[in-house]
């Protein structure tokens, strides 16, 4: 926002003293004023749509949708408007540089309507990009790339990132959209993990190393467009694949990754893939039930052992 006056910020409670339910915009209005930072009514569909109009007219709005579950309220504006205007106008709408950033993920005992990870829904939409950075360094770099991109980009951040510590350079740097990163190298098995599950996979890889198993952890960082090349290269090396995400197994990103691997490097596979995902139920409130639902380190370790058995 300091480097480009066209960047505007919209969100529920984003202005004033609060800066949104997670205080993500705290101090923003003090620095940039009410002409650039807007405290919106609770109308996700309207302020996303408004931002689409601003984006078509030379601005680069950032919209904060506090919980990813609420993106569904604005789904029509995201899918039918933001993603399609350049295409269906025949390029007369030249660009929609819109960023929607939103908190996703379970584990906060937030219940069924404040815990979902919906990346696979958006990955079905041509014209949209969706990123799911897993650490503070990637988050800053992806946000900068998203703001500078000429397309609508959804940046989903897991609630586990609130309070997460990690090295973040002060200056200007970007993490490119559409490029996966290998978070840990290993020769025995590839774990492709999404969002916070990258950190779970890294913990699991640490435990597995104690058993002499070297897991490679691939973080797609961007879900759409998906960097299939990095994933396929890794599977060619290890011959074994585990996919891991907090969203569900049916039609999840793990299914897509598995299908890509089958298409691109079936001959390299030494065992059937294993998909790890949340159990197919809404996220429950009570801690025991929620923990049962969401994949944890032990389930990842178990999945890796299974894929290595074959």
């Amino acid at each position, binding site marked *: 926002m300091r480097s480009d006056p066209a960047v505007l910020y919209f969100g529920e409670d984003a202005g004033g003293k609060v800066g949104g339910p997670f205080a993500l915009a705290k101090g923003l209005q003090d620095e940039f004023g009410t*002409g650039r930072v807007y405290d*919106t*009514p609770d*109308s996700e*569909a*309207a*302020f*996303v*749509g*408004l*931002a*689409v*109009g*601003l*984006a*078509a*007219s*030379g*601005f680069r709005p950032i919209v904060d949708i506090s919980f990813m579950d609420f993106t569904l309220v604005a789904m*029509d*504006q995201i899918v*039918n*408007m933001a993603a399609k*205007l*350049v*295409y*269906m*106008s*025949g*390029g*007369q*709408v*030249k*660009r*929609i*540089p819109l960023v929607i950033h939103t908190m996703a993920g379970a584990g906060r005992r937030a219940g069924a309507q404040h815990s979902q990870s919906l990346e696979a829904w958006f990955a079905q939409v*041509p*014209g949209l990009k969706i990123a799911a950075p897993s650490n503070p360094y990637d988050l800053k770099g992806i946000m900068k790339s998203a703001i500078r991109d*000429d*397309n609508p980009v959804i940046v989903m951040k897991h609630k586990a990132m609130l309070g997460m510590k990690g090295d973040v350079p002060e200056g200007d740097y970007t993490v490119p959209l559409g490029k996966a990163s290998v978070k840990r190298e290993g020769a025995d098995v590839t774990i492709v993990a999404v969002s916070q599950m990258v950190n779970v996979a890294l913990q699991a890889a640490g435990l597995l190393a104690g058993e002499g198993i070297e897991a490679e952890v691939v973080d797609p960082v961007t879900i759409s467009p998906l960097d299939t090349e990095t994933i396929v290269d890794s599977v060619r090396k290890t011959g074994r694949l585990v996919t891991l995400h907090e969203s569900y197994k049916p039609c999840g990103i793990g299914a897509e990754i598995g299908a890509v691997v089958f298409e691109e490097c079936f001959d390299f596979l030494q065992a059937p893939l294993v998909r790890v995902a949340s159990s197919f139920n809404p996220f429950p409130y009570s801690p025991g039930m929620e923990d049962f639902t969401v994949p944890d380190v032990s389930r990842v370790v178990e999945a890796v052992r299974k894929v290595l058995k074959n």
Partner: protein
Amino acid sequence: MYSMMHLIRRYESRTSELFKSGKFPGWIHVCIGQEASVTGACFALRDDDYISPTHRGHGQCLAKGMSPAKAMAELYGKRTGSNLGRGGSMHLCDMEKGILCGIAILGAGLPFAAGVAMAEKLKGTDRVAMAFFGEGASNEGIVHETMNLASLWSLPIVFFLESNQYAELSHKSFHHKLDTLARRAEGYGMPGVTVDGNDVLEVYRVAGEAVKRAREGGGPTLIDSITCRLHGHYEGDPQVYRIPGDRDEWRKKDPIDRFGKRMLEEGILTDEESREIIAGIDRTIEDAVAYAEESPYPDPEEALELVYAGQGGRARSLEGGERRCGR
């Protein structure tokens, strides 16, 4: 305005015929009967103002200055169409004329238009956006959200509601209880005005006041323009839901006849001049049809272009060759 209403009527009658003869790949929604409504509204705008058209948008776009040839070619799905053949009847767009892309999800174009209006306000211009919608769309949540937001932030936008009696396949009495939807405006803290949508001068006057208010920083207005669509929801619609005899009643209030009669009576127009205007318009529309017929279809692979910003250029490098119809 008289010429424009004739142009729209002729364009829509011709598209209705062409649809029946299978010339268009997709469906069309025509606005016959609503010519005064769209013409009066658009003529109250400047060339550099914006409109947000609907799925029933041919008349809205023509009234804002879209070339009939480009609009016709788009209905044919031709590469020379306003949207390179990839939009179709429901998504007509001409950004140079301030015609934002037609939006076929009821009410969904309203926040987009409000965002464009807000952008102009932030840039310090005095350009105004006018968002069209119908009484069917008026019951969509997004319409209420947008009106609240636009009023709250005093955005330079006019909400132009065409009450054309039918929402898709049922009479408006199945959809809301109010006699005029303009009354809803009070709920958002903005003025609401009801106007005879078949009286082009009245529409022009009321729209002009709303546009002036928006331009001067006074915020939005809701206009309920009472009119009637004389054709179905889509061409080919058997219209079994119509109130018996309603078309005969509304034809007595035909917006073009009314305005023409008044101009003849007041000596502003002669029968001969009127005939000349109509003949000229017939030629324009036939030229538009010929242009569309002669134009090529897009290459199928162009489907892959423009999915993301800046992608693909073959389609856009196309030279125009359009024949314009001035106001």
